């Protein structure tokens, strides 16, 4: 399956990229996807996760075509 991974704000700057497109042979959760992409960078504990532009649990199972986003706490308003 193929997923589109997006990073925002301080996390985007820290990683030096705004997105990844990755093809996976196996079904992963969002946190497992992070570990696969960034084996040397632990997921910061306050990171929020969205799947297809809705907030999701870290253990959410991903499906083919999903858009997965990782970002820090929001600071709008």
């Amino acid at each position, binding site marked *: 399956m193929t997923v589109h991974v*997006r990073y*925002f*704000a*301080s996390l985007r700057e820290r990683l030096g990229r705004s997105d990844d497109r990755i093809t996976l042979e196996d079904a992963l959760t969002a946190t497992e996807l992070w570990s696969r992409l960034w084996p040397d960078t632990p997921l910061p504990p306050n990171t929020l996760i*969205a799947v297809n*532009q*809705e*907030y999701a649990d870290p253990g959410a199972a991903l499906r083919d075509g999903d858009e997965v*986003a990782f*970002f*820090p*706490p*929001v*600071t*709008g*308003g």
Partner: protein
Amino acid sequence: MRIELWETPFEPLAELAYHQDSRPGLQGRHGAMASFVGTMRDSNEGSAVQAMTLEHYPGMTEKQLSAIVTEAEQRWTLLDTLVIHRVGRLVPGDPIVLVGVWSGHRNDAFEACRYIMEALKSRATFWKKETLAEGERWVEKNTTGYAP
């Protein structure tokens, strides 16, 4: 409901007046309008702030705002809601966010306006980066709005 993200400065009071005058459904029906305007300050956490950049998640941000307003519409009796939020570069004094709520009676307007603003603060996907004299700094979290 009307929800907009603006890349350029806006005048909150002019937008409220324009919205109220251009919605025929409001004339003679709304007994109450409550609004909130958030404005950029020139200091934060002990540092002078020269400018600010607001990043957002295109698509998700609009969906979140729409969902928040829908929740308010289900909880209170509202006639109309206007939300405008800035993105891009701001300087001190620039309005950041406007929430306007029209309803028949004050309680619905006050409560819904507060609810929308607090939900926006905690859930809507915006991120602020400040420009200070010594460099740039991400705002790490919003303050708590409701009294504990």
